[in-house]
């Protein structure tokens, strides 16, 4: 096991970490993260629209369409926000003007959706002019937004590097000069997308979606695919690196697409336990990462009963943060990092709880996950809210804590005994354990 951990640290982790720090992926991560607070707000309205008690649900049914409007404007348009944020971040990383990059990225993305005029279908005099169909502006358009952003900002960079810009004399204010700087790259980018989308009538949104839908199906609905992020994240943490921050930057766009698809389905009246995707990020957050990565709340409870003085102390200072899913004090305290004994349950417990939760959602025993609620909520509460007010989801969390505890127990016992013996053997040198 020690050899394996060394292999992870020296061979597996560096390329993964490098990938997460790659400029485009970083821009995607920043852009996506910038939408999270809006999604949080939108989710809140979705939760209100789906109360846990049937009589309440009936009472608000006539108003549901109105209640979910904030959801449609936040999550339903999230690719618009992300598009600007990603373009801003990528431009910044190239030392270009962030606002120009963001605006150009957004325009390029919007060019992929063709406005329509539906006045002919409406009663005389009630025309609404040109409208932009929303279908591809939410999660479904995320990958188009990413591609459009890369094309737009890379073009901006290309023209800037070759000095193909319209320069203004120095007396012109910065903001005015900036808008002219984007003129040539903007004309180039918009024209190209216009040719592809309008003249050639090639629906890039649908094309990209048709490529990514199978990937999403594997990552969201296939047990092996659902387990892959769990294994990668725990392996990285076992080597001491924030697994979620590495894997999340690659997988988060896909998780958000799933969350959006689930939310849209629910807002459109689907059964809360029959949603399109099993495993958006919130599935892991609430049913697997209970207490933090590695399902460590269960371990933390065991630590409180440790014989080793040191482990007991770690349990005491970790329990409160653990209840709110912050487990770094525990991970670096125990330590779980590069720990050949505890690495096994650290990986195994989440794999088992993921599998159980996967089937619980798949068979409709608990609701699917639709809402993004703050990750620092205690897991039963978070699970309840995120699975559209389902108390059974909270029960599943408790079951999963018990199962994780059972998996950790034998390994915890061995490790506790080892530390206890060391403590008895060298009371005076206790700090060597530190």
């Amino acid at each position, binding site marked *: 096991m020690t050899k394996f951990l060394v292999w992870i640290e020296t061979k597996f982790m560096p390329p993964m970490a490098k990938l997460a720090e790659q400029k485009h992926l970083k821009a995607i991560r*920043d852009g996506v993260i910038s939408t999270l607070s809006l999604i949080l707000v939108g989710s809140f309205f979705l939760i209100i629209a789906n109360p846990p008690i049937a009589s309440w649900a009936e009472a608000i049914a006539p108003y549901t369409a109105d209640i979910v409007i904030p959801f449609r404007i936040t999550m339903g348009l999230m690719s618009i926000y992300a598009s600007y944020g990603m373009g801003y971040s990528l431009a910044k990383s190239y030392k270009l003007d962030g606002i120009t990059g963001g605006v150009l990225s957004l325009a390029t993305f919007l060019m992929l959706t063709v406005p329509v005029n539906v006045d002919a279908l409406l009663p005389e005099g009630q025309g609404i002019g040109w409208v932009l169909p929303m279908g591809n502006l939410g999660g479904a358009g995320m990958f188009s937004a990413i591609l459009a952003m890369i094309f737009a900002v890379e073009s901006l960079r290309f023209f800037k590097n070759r000095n193909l810009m319209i320069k203004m004399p120095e007396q012109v204010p910065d903001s005015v000069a900036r808008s002219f700087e984007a003129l040539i790259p903007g004309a180039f980018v918009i024209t190209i997308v216009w040719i592809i989308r309008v003249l050639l009538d090639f629906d890039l949104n649908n094309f990209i979606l048709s490529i990514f839908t199978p990937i999403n199906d594997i990552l969201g609905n296939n047990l092996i695919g659902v387990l892959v992020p769990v294994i990668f994240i725990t392996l990285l943490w076992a080597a*001491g690196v924030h697994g979620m*921050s*590495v894997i999340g930057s690659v997988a988060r766009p896909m998780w958000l697409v799933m969350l959006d698809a689930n939310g849209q389905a629910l807002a459109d009246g689907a059964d809360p336990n029959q949603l399109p995707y099993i495993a958006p990020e919130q599935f892991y957050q609430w049913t697997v990462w209970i207490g933090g990565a590695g399902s460590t709340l269960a371990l933390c409870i065991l630590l409180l009963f440790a014989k080793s003085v040191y482990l007991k102390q770690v349990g005491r200072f970790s329990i409160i943060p653990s209840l709110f899913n*912050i*487990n*770094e*004090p525990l991970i670096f305290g125990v330590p779980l*990092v590069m720990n050949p004994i505890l690495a096994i349950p650290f990986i195994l417990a989440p794999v088992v709880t993921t599998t159980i939760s996967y089937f619980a959602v798949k068979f409709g025993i608990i609701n699917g996950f639709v809402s993004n609620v703050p990750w620092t909520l205690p897991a039963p509460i978070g699970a309840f809210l995120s699975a559209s007010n389902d108390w059974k989801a909270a029960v599943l969390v408790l079951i999963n804590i018990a199962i994780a505890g059972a998996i950790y127990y034998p390994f915890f016992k061995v490790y506790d005994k080892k530390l206890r013996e060391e403590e008895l053997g060298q009371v005076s040198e206790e700090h060597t354990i530190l």
Partner: protein
Amino acid sequence: MKVVMVCSGGMSSAIVVKAILKEADKQNFDLEMIAVGSGEIEEILKTSGYDLLLVAPQVKHQFATFEGYANEAGVPIDKVEPMGYTPLGAPKTLLQIKKYSK
């Protein structure tokens, strides 16, 4: 002395910072310290004169990025040892901080 510690979300480092501040208080060491997430650190470094940037162990893979920001702002940068990143490790990390005090 003004120190900033960066981790992924600024949550876990807040716990460590609190423990370090308590330890500094005990030792009568004048310390001003905050915890931030990896998304905010670039801006924070630009604003006010920090004497040291500490990088939490779980984001060591982003060290090169942080180093870029720190160099730009002219702030020394160092990694926190895994064992220094717990409330119990606070004295150890404080010792590390003191090495940078002028």
